[in-house]
């Protein structure tokens, strides 16, 4: 390779575009889908619409929808990875059939874990933050609308980087948390770990900025009268979540940064020589990683609190204890990280401390579960799809919680550690908790944003497929874990007799896949028949402020600033026959900005350039980001006026349409 070529392309060569059949197929499929999408937008002449209404928007409702779309696409990608993992374990290289070679298998499970956590679960909760929180606290916008768009586009940049290896290069084989020394230069010299680092680093910075944004939104933008202890529980859960995000995401930034410096600049943080310490990485990454799982699940708790209360037609049971349970969970989440590596050998005293703190978390969580059940008690419960997801959650999450308590006992953990028992446990929490929570939320809030409900029958079919599929897919994993099956297992000796259980697990994954198919069908059918499923602004008999506005909400959401008097403000308004004031005033909304999109694109370029060692491009993209940020941040003209007359006219039109 000539010097010039190396200067321009770094370590990129034509060879890096050549992949084995399955990956090449996926990569080509991705490119074809992208070209088809671009063709479709061009054919429908929708570029201007796309640019004005979506790509450059600073409206949190729309940014939320974009988070949702990206996350759902990533759910399909991560789901396909899961299918491949299980298929390989069923085929098990028997009769000489090798579905995935060992290296490709490692790449796929690493991608599955990383994508599901960072680009599905995180994306989905940010979608909910954006769509629900401002409306629930009676605000028109988040604290920093422009920053919000930057956060989204950094998330999108990370998403592109984690999918890029399907086209060029390879992905990490070091697992979703990339433990050194395996992830160090010595054992992973290729681009895979770098892709992993920079995808997460860029998306992680976006998450941190979102955290600050929503913290400030909740602290500063609540409608007059809404004290902290009057906020809906969902908003409370988001508040506690963003506190966690702000505290721990910088630690992720540091862990990834130091790992990257080890790889790029020959440093010795986590190497096995020159005084480096791989266990330091594992401590750091779990100091982020454990709170992270609460970052994912607390918003789901918030969703269920709203759903149970609405569909039981009762106020939430034990509001204050719910809030303090959230805070207690958040607090304890900081002091349990070592339970992820009891086997490190920190000694009996240290392990005991972390074992006990871990068990304590079960108490506030139990408080929440009982409060939800007491909310249903003597309520007029309606068994709609969101409520089914809730009840499925109570069952699966409680099972997951119990196996979690088993794992928290250090001597027992030496047996469970790194086994499929653990894998089953955390899928129990993340699917049964986060994913069910988000599905419940989507079904619940869907009519708020579209004006029509989702098809109930198909929703219920999807729910049962997910629940049964989930039990089939992860039940056997608990048993296999006891039998000694470990994670990252691409094949095993057939004489172990694990095949039957792996087949059951694969059937479970297919059943979940069927559930996803039902959901896609549900959305399609509902959109086609949207006139038939049309509903008014309050389809569920809801209790919180976001339901008090038009459906779908106007750009300015609240025509006048609400004056809050009650915890369940909308419920109180309905009971007391109150409505919003009609004294319209001018409203200022942020102008569209393409800077967020631009930063996202440049960050993608920056990531690719670092991964491939194209140093000139690293410098160029970095300087470009700084320059456009300076230009944007010294600009004072970023808002536009919506006059009182315009609002009055728009509100009148909304009234006519509703009547």
């Amino acid at each position, binding site marked *: 390779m000539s010097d010039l070529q190396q200067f321009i392309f770094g370590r990129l060569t034509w060879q890096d575009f050549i992949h084995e059949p399955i990956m090449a197929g996926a990569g080509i499929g991705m490119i074809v889908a992208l070209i088809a999408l671009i063709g479709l937008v061009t054919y429908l002449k929708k570029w201007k619409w796309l640019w004005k209404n979506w790509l450059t928007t600073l409206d949190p409702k729309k940014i939320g929808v974009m988070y949702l779309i990206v996350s759902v696409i990533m759910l399909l990608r991560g789901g396909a990875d899961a299918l491949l993992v299980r298929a390989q374990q069923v085929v098990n290289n028997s009769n000489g059939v090798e579905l995935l070679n060992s290296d490709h298998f490692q790449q796929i499970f690493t991608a599955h874990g990383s994508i599901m956590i960072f680009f599905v679960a995180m994306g989905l909760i940010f979608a909910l933050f954006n769509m629900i929180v401002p409306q629930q606290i009676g605000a028109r916008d988040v*604290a*920093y609308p422009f920053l919000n768009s930057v956060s989204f586009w950094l998330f999108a940049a990370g998403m592109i980087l984690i999918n890029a290896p399907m086209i060029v290069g390879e992905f990490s084989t070091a697992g979703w948390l990339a433990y050194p020394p395996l992830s160090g230069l010595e054992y992973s010299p290729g681009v895979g770990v770098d892709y992993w680092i920079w995808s997460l680093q860029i998306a992680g910075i976006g998450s*941190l900025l979102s*955290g*600050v*944004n929503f*913290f*400030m939104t909740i*602290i*500063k933008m609540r409608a007059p009268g809404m004290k902290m202890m009057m906020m809906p529980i969902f908003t409370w859960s988001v508040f506690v979540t963003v506190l966690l995000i*702000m*505290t*721990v*995401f*910088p*630690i992720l*930034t*540091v*862990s990834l*940064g*130091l790992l990257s*410096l*080890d790889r790029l*600049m*020959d*440093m*010795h*943080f986590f*190497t096995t020589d*020159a*005084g*480096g*310490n791989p266990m*330091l990485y594992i401590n*750091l990454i779990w*100091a982020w990683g454990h709170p992270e799982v609460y970052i994912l699940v607390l918003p789901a708790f918030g969703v269920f609190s709203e759903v149970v209360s609405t569909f039981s037609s009762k106020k939430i049971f034990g509001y204050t204890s719910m809030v303090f349970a959230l805070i207690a969970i958040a607090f304890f989440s900081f002091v349990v990280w070592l339970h992820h590596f009891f086997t490190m050998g920190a000694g009996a005293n240290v392990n005991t401390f972390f074992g006990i703190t871990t068990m304590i978390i079960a108490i506030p969580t139990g408080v929440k579960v009982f409060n939800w059940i007491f909310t249903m008690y003597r309520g007029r419960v309606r068994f709609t799809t969101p409520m089914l997801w809730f009840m499925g959650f109570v069952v699966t999450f409680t099972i997951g919680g119990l196996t979690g308590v088993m794992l928290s006992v250090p001597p027992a953990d030496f047996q469970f550690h790194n086994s499929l028992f653990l894998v089953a446990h955390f899928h129990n929490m993340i699917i049964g908790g986060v994913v069910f929570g988000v599905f419940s939320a989507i079904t619940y809030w869907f009519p708020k944003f579209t004006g029509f409900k989702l098809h109930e029958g198909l929703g219920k079919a999807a729910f049962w497929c997910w629940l049964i599929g989930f039990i089939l897919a992860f039940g056997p994993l608990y048993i296999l874990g006891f039998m000694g099956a470990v994670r990252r297992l691409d094949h095993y000796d057939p004489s172990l007799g694990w095949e039957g259980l792996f087949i059951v697990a694969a059937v479970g994954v297919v059943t979940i896949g069927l559930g996803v198919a039902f959901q896609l069908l549900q959305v399609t059918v509902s959109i086609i028949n949207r006139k038939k499923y049309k509903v008014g602004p309050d389809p569920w008999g809801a209790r919180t402020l976001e339901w008090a506005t038009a459906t779908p909400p106007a750009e300015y959401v609240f025509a006048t600033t609400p004056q809050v008097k009650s915890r369940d403000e909308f419920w109180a308004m309905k009971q007391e026959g109150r409505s919003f004031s009609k004294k319209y*005033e*001018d409203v*200022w909304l942020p102008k569209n900005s393409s800077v967020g999109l631009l930063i996202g694109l440049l960050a993608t370029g920056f990531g690719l350039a670092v991964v491939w060692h194209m140093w000139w491009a690293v410098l160029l993209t970095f300087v470009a980001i*700084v320059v456009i940020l*300076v230009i944007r*941040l*010294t600009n*004072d003209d970023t808002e536009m006026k919506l006059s009182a007359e315009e609002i009055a006219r728009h509100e009148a039109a909304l009234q006519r349409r509703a009547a």
Partner: protein
Amino acid sequence: MTTRAKEIAETQERKSLGLWVYLMTDCMLFGALFATFATLNTHVGVFGGPSGADLFNLKFVLVETMLLLTSSFTIGLAYLCATRGFKAQSMFWLISTFLLGASFLALELWEFNQLAAEGHGWWSSAFLSAYFVLVGTHGAHIAVGLIWMAVVIFRLLQRNFKQTDVQRLSLLSLFWHFLDIIWIFIFSFVYLIGGMS
């Protein structure tokens, strides 16, 4: 006050508080780096290689510290002058701050260069990796602060101390003070404790 004026004031207040909150997250970032340093610092004994006591020149670091502390004082003066409409004085103090900050950064880079030239670069031991990254991250923040300051100076001159630009100066001042506090910790933990043991 009209509703709009109140809104603008609230937006401004939100920006200051938001930056402060962001700086607290930055504190966590430095916290993780300090923890890393504290861990790897102790590995010197096991692994060998030079320790802080062998490498640091405390008098030199004291000069750096004085430069940075003074710059924190001058940026405070710059902001106070700007809010009272003393434009020339404000500009004088701002430029002084910039020069002090730039000298600090130059000294730090010189120190880094010196260490690397003697063969004690970031590649030679875990302790030195941690040292370079912790101190270097602070230095990178100073560099960001200097770019920010250059932009603020340019805008203040260009738009003749427009209210919004003075508010930007207040945010910069908050950031600059924060870097000072971090430096106090670096000075105490890395140089004083590390340099004497």
